[in-house]
């Protein structure tokens, strides 16, 4: 058996080890060659695996080794490659590679250059384990591992306490989701005695042994997905994660890691296909998250925060698609989103780079001519996410809207309406971002103003590639490519005459959003300012993200510390247990007041008594035993 899949996974791991151990000593040339070279190799290895897959048509299975064998059960480290894995692995290695290249420019002057690339490679290793793992166990290893890489990279500038705190928040929030994931995994193990996902799907498909409710498992796994993919109620970590370096935001917190939850549900579609209740939960949470995050994005003033909430919102779209059974469409949106959101984040990075670290869009403006490549690529990606035809986002989003409306597996006009309203907001807040950053008069600090410069080729080149993909990526018919694996839901014949009007509507919505932004933010944003003032209360709630962080802190954080400190430590440990112990000791002391004279403080004496006691007891036990 060939170990091609193992190789794909291990290549970035080698990069991590080499850069982690030797990078600092061998210099930048070495770090670049290893850090970018191995992911690119992994990309080509993935292409080769894909060619093999198309050649034989059968999924490739690669068993690396048996991790644990207990009784007659076995946990294997095995990899599995079908078209779904192919799409994901190509996104991960492809977008991953270009972001590595971009980072050579973006992180050029950072003192911990080698460490940064080591962590990025570590991330790729775990992400590839996640998408290529055959069993839920291997997937979970990758799942936790990408969380670790994310933690390390958010806290990359760990001198800043804000970063360190954001990293911890991300890790802990994800762990809450993981607890649900683990429970779901355990139930499946109980029911099927295997964690191999192809076998579990097959078992459900054959209708065999629904010993455990598909909806229960589905909901538990989805709890894990809400953590990793930042859905309500576990979305709170992602915006804070933007404290990390921008290429990290692009790779991990937009293009790949956060879509792991989407992948999980799509991969386990065999379960969700038999779990209408769980699917409904997925759809509703997805739609709600999409809507809710979009409302927040409208008011944010940090360029990366806007994009972060936009990511949360777009992930909501993907879950909406999953919830109505359009798994292939969700993966389609994963891909297009990876293109345009990576482009947007890297574009934002280029802006931040040009402005010597400025992230506040209120202090930008008029940059279109100063950094033209960044502007053009950013504009293309904005149009793509806004859903302007024929750019990539239009196609995938349109299919989501159509399935939300018409799918026979839970589609409804309500879901469509929520999604459409979100699409309108998306077009609006993205155009607002574009406008405030690139158009109008410059609001830059004079000092920053002097240093504005276009980014080096390593960065702009990557932007051009991603913008091109954002433009034409919609013509890659992912749902069709995955049709055999993830069939699209049926749509009732009666609804088909709605299809064309709905497409027109969604185009109109996109244009409306763009136009509205232009209307409100033209002429220095005076109109927008007036709206903000008249709706000050609403603005405050949105700007502060509905105060959910504060709510969690009050409801969970503080009570936990309070109970631990006041109840467990002070009352439990000190008062009750030690108190009782002291009481006993005092009682014994009083009862044997005379004996206290032997408490001389000489340890030898104590030791002698202990030994004496033991010997005496033993002697006694022989006599009377």
């Amino acid at each position: 058996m060939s170990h091609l899949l193992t190789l794909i996974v291990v290549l970035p791991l080698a990069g991590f080890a080499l850069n982690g151990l030797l990078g600092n000593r061998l210099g930048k040339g070495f770090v670049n060659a290893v850090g970018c070279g191995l992911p690119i190799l992994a990309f080509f290895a993935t292409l080769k695996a894909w060619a093999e897959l198309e050649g034989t048509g059968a999924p490739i299975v690669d068993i690396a080794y048996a991790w644990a064998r207990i009784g007659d059960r076995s946990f294997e480290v095995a990899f599995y490659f079908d078209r779904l894995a192919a799409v994901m692995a190509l996104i991960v290695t492809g977008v991953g590679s270009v972001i590595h290249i971009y980072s050579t420019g973006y992180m050029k002057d950072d003192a911990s250059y080698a460490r940064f690339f080591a962590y990025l490679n570590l991330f790729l290793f775990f992400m590839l384990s996640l998408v290529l793992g055959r069993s839920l166990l291997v997937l979970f290893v990758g799942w936790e591992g990408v969380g670790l890489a994310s933690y390390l990279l958010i806290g990359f500038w760990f001198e800043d306490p804000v970063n360190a705190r954001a990293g911890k928040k991300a890790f802990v929030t994800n762990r809450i989701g993981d607890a649900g994931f683990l429970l779901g995994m355990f139930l499946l193990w109980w029911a099927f005695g295997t964690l191999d996902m192809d076998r579990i799907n097959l078992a459900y498909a054959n209708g065999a042994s629904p010993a455990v409710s598909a909806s229960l498992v589905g909901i538990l796994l989805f709890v894990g997905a809400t953590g990793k993919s930042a859905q309500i109620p576990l979305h709170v970590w992602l915006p804070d994660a933007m404290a990390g370096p921008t290429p990290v935001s692009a790779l991990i917190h937009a293009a790949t890691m956060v879509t792991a939850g989407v992948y999980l549900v799509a991969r386990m579609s065999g379960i969700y296909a038999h779990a209408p209740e769980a699917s409904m939960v997925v759809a509703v949470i997805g739609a709600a998250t999409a809507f809710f995050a979009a409302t927040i994005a409208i008011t944010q003033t940090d360029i990366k925060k806007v994009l972060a909430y936009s990511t949360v919102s777009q992930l909501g779209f993907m879950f909406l698609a999953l919830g109505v059974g359009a798994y292939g469409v969700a993966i389609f949106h994963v891909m297009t989103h990876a293109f345009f959101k990576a482009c947007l984040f890297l574009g934002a990075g280029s802006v931040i780079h040009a402005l010597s670290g400025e992230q506040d869009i209120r202090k930008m403006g008029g940059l279109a001519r100063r950094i033209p490549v960044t502007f053009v690529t950013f504009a293309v990606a904005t149009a793509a996410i806004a859903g302007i035809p024929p750019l990539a986002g239009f196609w995938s989003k349109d299919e989501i809207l159509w399935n939300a409306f018409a799918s026979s597996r839970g589609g409804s006009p309500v879901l469509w309406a929520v999604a459409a309203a979100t699409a309108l907001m998306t077009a609006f807040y993205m155009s607002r971002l574009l406008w405030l950053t690139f158009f109008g008069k410059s609001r830059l600090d004079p000092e920053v103003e002097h240093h504005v410069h276009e980014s080096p080729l390593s960065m702009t080149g990557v932007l051009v590639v991603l913008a091109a993909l954002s433009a034409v990526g919609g013509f890659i018919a992912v749902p069709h490519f995955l049709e055999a694996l993830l069939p699209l839901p049926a749509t009732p014949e009666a609804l088909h005459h709605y299809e064309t009007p709905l497409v027109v509507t969604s185009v109109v919505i996109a244009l409306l959003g763009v136009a509205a932004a232009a209307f409100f933010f033209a002429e220095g944003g005076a109109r927008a300012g007036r709206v903000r003032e008249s709706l000050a209360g609403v603005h405050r709630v949105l700007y502060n993200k509905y105060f959910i962080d504060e709510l969690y802190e009050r409801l969970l954080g503080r009570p936990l510390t309070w109970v631990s400190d006041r109840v467990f430590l002070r009352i439990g440990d000190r008062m009750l247990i030690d108190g009782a112990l002291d009481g006993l000791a005092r009682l014994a002391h009083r009862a044997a007041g005379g004996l206290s004279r032997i408490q001389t403080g000489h340890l030898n004496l104590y030791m002698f008594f202990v030994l004496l006691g033991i010997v005496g007891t033993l002697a006694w036990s022989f006599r009377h035993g």
Partner: protein
Amino acid sequence: MGEAFLLNFVLYLPLVGIVLLMAAPPGQEGFVRRITLWVMALQFALTVILYVQFDATVPGLQFETRLPWIPAWGVYYQIGLDGYNVLLVLLTAFLGPLVVAGAFTAITKDVKLFYAMVFLIQFAMMGTFVAQDLFLFYLFWETMLIPMFLLIGIWGGERRIYATIKFVLYTAFGSILMLAAVIYLVWSLQQTTGITSFAFADLYKAELPLNAQIVLLSAFGLSFAIKVPMVPLHTWLPDAHVEAPTAGSVILAGVLLKMGTYGFMKLGFPLFPDATHWFAPAIMVLAVISIVYGACLALVQNDIKKIIAYSSISHLGYVMLGLISLDLIGIQGAVIQMVSHGLTAAGLFLMVGMIYERCHTRELAAYGGLAKLLPVYSVFFMILTLASIGLPTTSGFTGEFLVLLGAFTASWQQYRQGAVLPLATAVIAVSGVVLGALYMLRFAQTFLFGVEKAPHQPLVDLDRREKAILIAIVAAVFLLGLFPDGPMKKTELAAKQYQQLVSTPRLPGSPR
């Protein structure tokens, strides 16, 4: 006999070490340290040979010695390796040289006596694990107490007397109960079967009435639960850790605590299966309380040794949960979790010792940004933190995952038969992984990240000796995380035997 000799040699080697130390001329501290390290290293090397030669396919004892000792009472000198103890013996021998090397610069007072005590406790711990006769087991068990008592009492911190007395009170209380139970158990065996024996193998056959089993398990169990320690019998541990010198903490966390869980696995549960069944819900609840309570307390500590001490309580709660699940995967997970905790807690305590030697404080708030100040130190610290959290690819994951998987599937089975409590405990235990991340990351974040801060700067990063110690531990952590199959093969037959002994009613007609 040749094989059996090897095990005896490994067991008594520390005593040889004590003799060598006695022969050392005074003032030769460097010589004392080197001799101790070499003897410990030799013991580890020989234990590796034992481990490799240990045949995983043969049930029962290997490298066995059985000599009559007090024939009238059926007491034998019986020692041997089996799946129950093989990994723990390896762990003990592995930590030996590390404990010694870790104390090279920290201990300057009464060096000879110190290493003699380390040898003595090493001997007693090994003996407790390999003893196959209850009388012998009890002797070794008690012998462990004395050197630990002295390690804390002589080389400890400021409140060492308070800590030692607390430690002695708790453990002596447990010992007395156990002694009484031992006598009663052997007596009952004689009454019911006519056999007078202290051999574990014979005691497993005792058919005691349920009431007697309950009394006996309570006595044994309290003694073991103090050692584990399980909440609410744990308050000696944080004090003992805080006051103990690094070597004491490492031995305590690395090996001594496992005496409790090993005691349950080897004696408590399989000797009294019907009582175990009777107590099972209570044990599950206490295990989960230990997991959650220990984690919560670790969250609010400001002394870095106390954080690790409370985290130990939480981690050993998982071991108890795995053992009581009676699921093969859970049991195997519990064994791995014992070893894993031995590695990570020992490593963390060693690292606390290293920073303490540099900065002379254990106050968490005194530190910050060590990642900048001590980059190499920080990398090791992060790895051990992650292993403690149970991140995949580390030993902590192997243990925790298998325990939780086993406990959950067993409890789900019971749930379908109408029992809700086991499922509730399993679900709470799974949620415990969140708390684990919370307290360890709070620790690591304050310690490693943020603004650089530490007393007694400038600090010197790890030297070669310290790096070597930590590389050994980290390597073991990853080995057990990535390739646990080999070690688990060695313990599998014992785990199956344990499962069978505890699951089968000893008394005909006992409920299951």
